[in-house]
């Protein structure tokens, strides 16, 4: 079986930022993240021989440019342009490189800046298809795409705005304990419902706040991690799918539904064993779909599930996006995709910025990225476990 990620350690969860706007380039956020990663793990810069980078605003540079910029000489280099799925994809690739001996210590980093006025250009030119077939329709980027998905999901499965509100409110409660989250004020249902419409049925609190920042973690061997004497987590299972279910007229499910049975089987665990879920939350409808497609409830039962499940860190239910997620922490470009993986490592190694999920020993993180036309194409998920010290 291909599902054997033993011997690989994830460590040093690192967050840089967040700032609403910045005059720095993406390289600054990524570089500071690499510096903090190395310092956090006690690894010398010269030992870092692998780098995986995800960034939206680094162009025209890539991971290649950063080796020169940062004075790094690596024997393994990945540029992972998969947005919200890049962290899980990066850790999967890095794990194989560690197992194969192609690299010893790999930094997986996503970072982006957010310059005033820079958002429009990024949205207009996100992909060839979206420039041609989405942007001319209202010039509103992903808000249009996800409004269309949200309304279709509501019509198909009977979801209400309150159901999405429950996710946003629980994540805001989680964010209220996280000092780097940009949105920490309590959110109540009436305020959520009364928010101004952006692209109906999507309203203000269904949208992430674009910002600047970086998220990263290190991947190395369990042996090296033990010698560093820092807490680490292991990968029980990880998988990815790209352009899953292309025949679906509207994206009401993601690629997770294709591989989740194998994922849990490889981990020897089920959804009920997960102490938390870090789900990609560019819009709450997508978080809701992940709860379904990752097996926490049946397809279409997500709305009912969130009506009866406590989603905060300490409520005894299923903690969801325990640092607040992008909906409350902010979306630092592609770093938004690394947020969940970094938070999962934090929870499992006792290095949280906000609230700790009590006794967290195993959790699932899922990624979702790249709205090429009318849906996101990349889905990925990993089951991670706290390593025995």
């Amino acid at each position, binding site marked *: 079986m291909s599902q054997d990620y033993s011997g690989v350690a994830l460590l040093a969860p690192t967050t840089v930022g967040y700032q609403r706007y910045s005059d720095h380039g993406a390289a600054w956020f990524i570089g500071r993240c690499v510096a903090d990663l190395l310092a956090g793990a006690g690894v010398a810069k010269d030992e870092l021989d692998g780098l995986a980078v995800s960034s939206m605003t680094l162009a025209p540079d890539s991971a290649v440019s950063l080796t020169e910029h940062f004075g790094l000489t690596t024997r393994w280099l990945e540029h992972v342009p998969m947005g919200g799925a890049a962290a899980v994809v990066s850790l999967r690739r890095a794990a194989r490189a560690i197992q194969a001996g192609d690299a010893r210590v790999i930094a997986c980093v996503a970072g982006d800046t957010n310059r005033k006025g820079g958002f429009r250009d990024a949205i207009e030119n996100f992909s060839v298809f979206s420039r041609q077939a989405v942007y*001319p329709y*209202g*010039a509103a980027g992903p808000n249009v795409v996800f*409004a269309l998905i949200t309304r279709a999901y509501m019509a198909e499965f009977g979801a209400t705005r309150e159901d999405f509100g429950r996710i946003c409110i629980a994540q805001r409660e989680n964010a209220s304990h996280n000092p780097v989250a940009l949105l920490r004020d309590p959110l109540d249902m009436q305020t959520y419902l009364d928010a101004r*419409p952006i*692209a*109906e049925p999507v309203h203000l609190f269904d949208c992430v706040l674009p910002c600047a920042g970086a998220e990263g973690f290190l991947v190395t061997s369990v042996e090296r991690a033990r010698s560093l004497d820092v807490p680490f987590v292991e990968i029980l299972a990880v998988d990815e799918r790209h352009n899953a279910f292309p025949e679906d*007229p509207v994206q009401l499910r993601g690629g997770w539904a294709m591989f989740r049975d194998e994922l849990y089987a490889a981990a020897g665990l089920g959804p009920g064993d997960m102490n938390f879920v870090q789900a990609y939350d560019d819009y709450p409808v997508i978080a809701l779909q992940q709860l379904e497609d990752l097996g926490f409830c049946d397809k279409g039962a997500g709305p009912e599930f969130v009506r009866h499940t406590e989603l905060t860190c300490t409520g005894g239910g299923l903690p969801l996006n325990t640092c607040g997620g992008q909906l409350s922490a902010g979306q630092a470009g592609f770093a938004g995709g690394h947020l969940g993986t970094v938070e999962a490592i934090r929870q499992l190694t006792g290095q949280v910025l906000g609230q700790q999920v009590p006794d967290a020993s195993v959790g699932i993180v899922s990624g979702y990225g790249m709205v090429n036309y009318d849906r996101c194409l990349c889905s990925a998920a990993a089951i991670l476990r706290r390593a025995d010290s």
Partner: protein
Amino acid sequence: MTKIGNLQLLVCDDCGKVQYPDREICADCLGGTLTRKTIDNGGELLSWTRLHASLEPMFQQALPWLIASVRLSSGPVVVAHWVGAEPTMGQAVQVVMVDDPQDRKVLVALDADADEKAAGQLFVADGGSA
């Protein structure tokens, strides 16, 4: 009043599959020769949104703005401007093409029984959607 054009999309010379968005390679057979043809413009409304925020002045001045997604009877899903009263999920629609103020050929969806001339009013001042 903007001229109303037939719905013309790329069709694979090899397998006949209708493609959208425009592309260079057929998503069905990987054929590399695609020809623009007039195709059946009927379809079913999949979803819609009323937009209240835009990055472009031409829409900002006209907000709110209706946008629909449509599954064409020929297969592809298209995102289109919507003209007419608030749409109903699943309703039968027609899709036509017009030139927008930036000279882009864009799709306009409207009720299957509506007069397609209404699509020509979309980018005329005060003639947009509500």
